[in-house]
């Protein structure tokens, strides 16, 4: 029930690098404007980061490419994608993905 020092430092560092991008634009943007190319570049960042993370979760297993024939995560992603497009519900997408993977692991 204690907090280890190394874990504390990781949490503190992660919290700091999360806090700064959250508050800085709100605090400064009334005085400074980001140049057009900077905004365009930043504009693609959320999509690029999320796509990269999804690809890594679905296709990489322990630093190697997951064999497609046994990749249940990839199969579970399909109904999750479908529900996201159809319902635009984050809750629906998460529950569909989790339940699909649970059922797939029961079967395979």
């Amino acid at each position, binding site marked *: 029930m204690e907090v280890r020092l190394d874990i504390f430092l990781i949490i503190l560092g992660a919290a700091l690098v999360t806090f700064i991008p959250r508050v800085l634009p709100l*605090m400064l943007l009334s005085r400074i404007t980001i140049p057009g190319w900077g905004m365009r570049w930043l504009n693609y960042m959320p999509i690029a980061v999320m796509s*990269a993370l999804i690809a*890594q979760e679905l296709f990489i297993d322990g630093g190697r490419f997951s064999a497609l024939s046994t990749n249940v995560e990839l199969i579970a992603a399909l109904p999750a994608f479908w529900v996201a*497009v159809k319902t635009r519900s984050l809750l629906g997408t998460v529950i569909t993905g989790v339940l699909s993977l649970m059922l797939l692991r029961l079967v395979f």
Partner: protein
Amino acid sequence: MKSESVQAELAAAAPVSEESFLQGVKDCIPTLLGYLSIGFAAGVVEKTAGLSLAEIALISTILYAGSAQFIAAGMIAAGSTATSIIITILLVNLRHLLLSAALSPYFRHLTPLRNLLIGTLLTDETFGVAIQRSANRKAISEKWMHGLNITAYLNWIIANLAGAVLGQWISSPEEWGLDFALPAMFIGLLVLTLISRSRYALDITVGLIAMAVAVGLSILWSPSIGVIAAAVIASTIGAVIEKWK
């Protein structure tokens, strides 16, 4: 700008209660269940990654970011170095720059210090609710925003702790598919972002480039470099194509 003056009148004509803290709490309610489930899954995954209840309370209170907490749990369990964990989280959470920048025009009436308090609890979810509210307004009420932010924050901490407590009896979150809560949330957030931007051709191109680079570099080099390089390369290509079109 005729529409602007109409919007200003609408905002001025809105009853006082519309701007209140309590209204912010009420406007948060539709999102609570979704983040309760993700927070619960995060708590279970953090617990099974070996974090103590106190550490889970700390991470959900001071980090307060779903994706970052799953990543931290996974990387701590995998024995990654502190530096690589923090750099990965920095990159994943860089998107907050955009959310914060997009909200800034609606909080120009506040001092930088008060904007700091607004931004401290900014998340994808509270941003989503706030940007919808900004549609027919020139400014967003500070009290309303705090009502929204604080409700989402408390909901998140409670969900994490509930997951942590129940996680003690779940030996393998994989058996319940709970390790998929994070990828599924990313899928949901990506699809919602794509739909709200409605610039499918370019956005999907950027997404596919990011996926290919991430997979390639994760195999050839290392997974944390893979995400960083993929985000930078794909965003740059997107910005260049947009410029040249």
